[in-house]
């Protein structure tokens, strides 16, 4: 670091200059080889488990104990996928999960965009304190709120209104979708604080003149937001929707807390190994004889295939939005 710029400004003879260029070129080449090696290596680490699962999903039963097979199976079969889908009750499960996740994602995106815009563009008494509280919601671990939230939704009763009208002690909302819907609609769901932060940073960076023009043209606050600001906020919207969708889809914390009995993929996957062990002998026609056990390696194969089925929708979704997502980082709203 002690090298100062002026050392290199000294006029060099032509021979040296050529040498220098050759040296620069080779070091550039070496560097780019090194870079590709690293990037390909890390990509391999990321993709390897995925490839392994895909390979397992199409592998015939005969191939389990064949050590000469690497990745590409000898006996292609769709049986594993069929069996795993049967064990998981896949299609109804998927439809249910997608409906639930889509609704909560939309509610989260709307409520967080509103809150982010409110914090970015309006000053009202205590607005800074309230924004600090948004950050606080990110910092406090969810497990701290777990027990009160559970009890709260067990006897759901805001301001005693249910008690006042019906005389009952509140409604039990556990094992319904309401707890997640309510938290999502009030910008309090999974990592909602982070999403509010992302939106706020983005809206802060937008020119004020657009809004003023809309105001002069007679648009009200909400109209300006819906017609002018939101259409311009596509990139943070995609980021938030993707993250919210994915995290909700993968979430086990809230879903096992509030709706442990609901058919959701994240809950099903966690119990998949036990279930596969129990169900596979039956499905393969051994009857419900409890003494019968399926080959553990075969069960592991089915579990792997099941995991692949569970994450497949996310991968397909990602393939579609990945371009917008990566671009949105480029013109990022994340940091602002």
């Amino acid at each position, binding site marked *: 670091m002690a090298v100062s710029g002026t050392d290199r400004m000294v006029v060099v003879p032509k021979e040296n200059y050529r040498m220098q260029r050759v040296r620069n070129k080779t070091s550039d080449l070496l560097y780019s080889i090194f870079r590709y090696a690293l990037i390909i290596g890390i990509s391999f680490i990321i993709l390897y488990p995925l490839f392994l699962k895909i390979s397992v999903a199409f592998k015939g039963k005969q191939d389990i104990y064949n050590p000469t097979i690497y990745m590409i199976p000898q006996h292609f079969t769709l049986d594993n996928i069929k069996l795993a889908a049967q064990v998981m009750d896949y299609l109804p499960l998927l439809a249910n999960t997608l409906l639930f996740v889509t609704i909560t994602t939309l509610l989260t995106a709307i409520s967080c965009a509103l809150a982010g815009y*409110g914090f970015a563009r309006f000053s009202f008494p205590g607005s800074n304190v*309230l924004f600090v509280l948004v950050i606080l919601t990110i910092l406090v671990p969810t497990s701290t709120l777990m*027990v009160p939230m559970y009890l709260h939704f067990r006897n759901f009763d805001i301001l005693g209104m249910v008690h006042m009208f019906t005389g009952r002690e509140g409604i039990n909302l556990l094992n319904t979708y309401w707890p997640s819907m309510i938290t999502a609609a009030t910008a309090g769901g999974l990592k909602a604080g982070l999403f509010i932060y992302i939106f706020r940073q983005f809206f802060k960076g937008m020119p004020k003149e657009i809004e003023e023009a809309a105001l002069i043209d007679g648009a009200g606050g909400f109209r300006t937001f819906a017609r002018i600001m939101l259409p311009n906020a596509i990139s943070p919207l995609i980021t938030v929707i993707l993250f919210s969708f994915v995290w909700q889809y993968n979430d086990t914390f809230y879903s096992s807390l509030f709706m442990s009995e609901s058919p959701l993929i994240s809950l099903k996957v966690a119990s998949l190994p036990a279930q596969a062990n129990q169900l596979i002998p039956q499905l393969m026609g051994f009857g419900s004889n409890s003494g019968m056990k399926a080959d553990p390696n075969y069960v592991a194969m089915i579990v792997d295939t099941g995991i692949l089925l569970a994450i497949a929708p996310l991968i397909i979704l990602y393939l579609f939005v990945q371009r917008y997502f990566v671009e949105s980082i480029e013109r990022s709203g994340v940091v602002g």
Partner: protein
Amino acid sequence: MRTLRLSLKSRRALLGLAFISPWLIGFIFLFATPLLQSIRFSLSNLSVAPGGYVLDFVGLKNFKDAILVDATFNRILVDSVGAMLLNVPMILFFSLFTATLLNQKFKGRTMARAIFFLPVILASSAVAAAESAGLINLMGDISAVDSSAEGGASFNVLSIVRMLNDVGLPMAYVDYIVEAIMRIYDIVSSSGVQILIFLAALQSVPGSMYEVAKIEGATAYESFWKITFPMVSPLILTNVIYTIIDSFAGSPVTEAIYQTAFKTQNFGLSSAMSWLYTLVIGLVLVVVGWVLSRRVHYN
């Protein structure tokens, strides 16, 4: 509105409140109230009664129980804080390195980025649970485990250890590096969001600064330490805090708190445990934040 004769300023204030009102309602009823309740629960003995619950005030007994009586809690707490302190530097180093790499121009950059963010999509505690159960519990016989391990780790770790030791690195560093290498998949898969944040930060560094540095004859190494590093340093703080918080998600402590509440029905003890956890994490955040923010360069 006109009849109320509000000034533009207060009308804007009301509009702002209207925008944040969904969040505000949620915050009051679903965050602040439970938070206060949780403090009350941690100081009480909670028993579920038909149609509600009964609280008996017991003072700090739950906290004492959590630290002194519970067989595993204090060990789990210390372990996971220790693991967190080890993980954060690794994840941070890896994500800054990767972000710098992905920010350079090369063929296939878009694809590389898409692949590097894939772990954000696939990181799921449910999948991880199913995977570990699938491998350990079900692959009963040793031969199967052997054959399945063959693909992954066929290189010899010992040779690396010996090599690094010969170079003259202290054993503690060698351990750290080897551990990082062995857990590379975990590190890669938990640094997606951090890479994203760093990448966004790198993009906001004006390119003209690098041009000037190049004309002045700075090497890539120098321009990294003199330009890139100071420019992204505020985001290092953000990333440290994010990583620490992110390590809550699937930690054994959270699991222990959950088990105490819903398996043994000891809600008071569980609340006390979660408050101890919150306080420890809060303390770590304050210390780390204080140390780092003194070194951060803001422009």
